[in-house]
């Protein structure tokens, strides 16, 4: 595999003494580590709840299916966005009720539908006629949302490419479903992931409000839900708007909806990104023509997997009291693959074998997409509410 050149991540150089708490953690638990801080999850939940009052928050479990994460959000009062029977099993174990969930995978096997119904989840999302037909045997038990697609080529991950019907098609699909005896209770959309600005959300809300009102005026069945998806950004770097200013125009757009329409959202990244810190250890050093290479015991096949799949640029922290002399540096993971590089084009002081590197804001799409490649063990996951994490 060819390696891809990445923009430099934000780097912080902290005094060597500040490494102490991380060193203690790996002395106790081993390296590499991923430390989840439930206090930060609770804080993120509160801030999104404040920024979107009255909007039901369904945590997209796929962002981080760790038990401690899901349990913390359940305690906060979150509902859950599920996509697989595996996620259902996790929620069962934590004793979350099925009527607190929405099954959002647009493509389902019959078994997936049955597993969800047995769990008590009766809300589903579909985006095409073939999927609607799959619900005929269960038509009296379910409530269906239609996923409408609003292409967003400017988001790092364009979620409208793979799934979603066009707005023009949505009303007709809803009518066809009604003829089959299947109730369409509303629309859902995904404006993108880690959206830089709220315009895609506001545009989609406005368009869906039109569609909902038009549908309700012209049909006997009434739609009652709008699902505004996720895409709420987190500050991996300085350019990200804070959640309050990001949501203000969305709140305004939501005012277009008639009062009886319930609004829900499916935040994933926003609720968990800030809540995990990766701690890894330098296991090798080499000076090469393009700079100094540090080989860490965690990389893109492990906790830094989102560097590849999620295009996330996690802030990096290193520890040194020598800040005047820095070197062009590349940080790589431990596997044999050349793509396993998670930081390039950075300048940092010299590190030694055994020194620590800390990755911050590593709670979303990190452990969720880690692999066992090369049979390197995945980072151990622990919980801590210490402010350092």
């Amino acid at each position, binding site marked *: 595999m060819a390696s891809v050149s990445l923009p430099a991540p934000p780097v912080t150089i902290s005094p060597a003494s500040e490494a102490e708490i991380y060193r203690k953690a790996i002395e106790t638990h081993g390296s590499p580590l991923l430390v989840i801080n439930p206090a930060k999850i609770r804080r993120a939940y509160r801030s999104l709840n404040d920024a979107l009052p009255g909007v039901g928050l369904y945590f997209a479990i796929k962002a981080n299916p760790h038990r401690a994460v899901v349990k913390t959000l359940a305690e906060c009062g979150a509902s859950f966005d599920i996509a697989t029977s595996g996620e259902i099993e996790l929620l*069962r174990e934590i*004793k979350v*009720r099925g*009527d607190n969930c929405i099954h959002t995978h647009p493509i389902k096997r019959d078994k997936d539908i*049955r597993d969800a119904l*047995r769990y008590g989840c009766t809300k589903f999302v579909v985006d095409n006629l073939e999927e609607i037909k799959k619900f005929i045997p269960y038509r009296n*038990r379910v409530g269906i949302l239609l996923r409408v697609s609003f292409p967003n080529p400017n988001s790092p991950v364009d979620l409208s490419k793979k799934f979603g019907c066009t707005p023009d098609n949505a009303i007709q699909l809803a009518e066809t479903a009604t003829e089959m005896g299947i*109730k369409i*209770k509303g629309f859902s959309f995904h404006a993108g992931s880690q959206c830089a600005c709220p315009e895609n959300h506001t545009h989609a809300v406005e368009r869906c409000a039109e569609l909902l009102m038009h549908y309700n005026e012209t049909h006997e069945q009434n739609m009652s839900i709008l699902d505004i998806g996720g895409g709420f950004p987190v500050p991996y770097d300085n350019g990200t708007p804070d959640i309050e200013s990001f949501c203000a125009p969305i709140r305004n757009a939501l005012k277009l909806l008639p009062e009886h329409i319930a609004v829900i959202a499916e935040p994933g990244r926003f609720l968990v990104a800030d809540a995990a810190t990766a701690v890894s250890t330098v296991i090798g050093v080499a000076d090469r023509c393009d700079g100094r290479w540090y080989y860490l015991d965690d990389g893109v096949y492990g906790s830094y997997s989102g560097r590849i799949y999620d295009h996330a640029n996690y802030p990096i922290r290193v520890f040194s009291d020598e800040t005047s002399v820095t070197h062009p540096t590349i940080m790589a993971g431990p596997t044999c693959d050349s793509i396993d590089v998670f930081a390039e084009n950075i300048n940092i002081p010299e590190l030694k074998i055994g020194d620590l590197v800390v990755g911050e804001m590593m709670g979303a799409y990190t452990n969720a997409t880690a692999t066992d490649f090369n049979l390197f063990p995945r980072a151990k996951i622990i919980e801590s509410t210490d402010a350092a994490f």
Partner: protein
Amino acid sequence: MNRYSETLYDAWGQSFAVDKVLFETHTDHQHLVIFKNSHYGRVMALDGVIQTTEADEFIYHESLTHIPLLAHGDVKKVLIIGGGDGGILREVCKHKNVESITMVEIDNAVVEMSREHLPKHSDGAFDDSRFQLVIDDGANFVAETEQTFDVIISDSTDPIGPGEVLFTQDFYGNCKRCLNPGGVLVTQNGVPFMQADELISTHERQQVHFADNTFYTAAIPTYVGGVMAFSWASDNKDLRAQNLEIIKARFEQAELAVRFYTPELHLGAFALPGYIQEHLK
């Protein structure tokens, strides 16, 4: 105050005040709970769906037992598929002329739990000398057994769930294979007002094997959504065409202590409302 809300339907559902949780388990990909409710007594729910309550179980168990047994009139051997709570068994045991009762339950834990937490359902029937418990998958048992029966009662859970195999064409065919000539199969078949597809598919699958196939009904308050349907499958069309005098005579002779069943209701149960009849055309 705690509440238990059924999650059977997205658009509506029933909800119970939970006075006390008596038993709860989250094992084998299932959530089972038994709780006390001031109106319904002990209530058992599996995966968000009410299975049985002490207050209204008699309507279900009497309907599923006495109608086939008294329609047949000379039942010696009864097979119960499922029915681990012992309610059907209790009703069958009331028939003195029945010589043997086999119950096939997939999990002995269901029986043990019911004996402990729903003792009124079986009311001592598990100790009846005519009773034999087989721990096996009901679908597997009817496929393999050499025994034959006069009445088979399928007291299963929902087809979306562990009871799925008890709603297949193969299962119905195997039931026919182990019915004595003139015998009858009856099954729990959901609430047609909400689950018409279940009724339609059962009818399609049973028709293949039986000369006479219909449904009869009873209204059980906690199986919400109108009357519950029970399928009726036999090769003897006369079984459900008995006149009232014969049923009355059998009922009196049987000396059953019942609260729901009456001979008049027995005959009336086969009179189906139009919205169910239209599915059977």
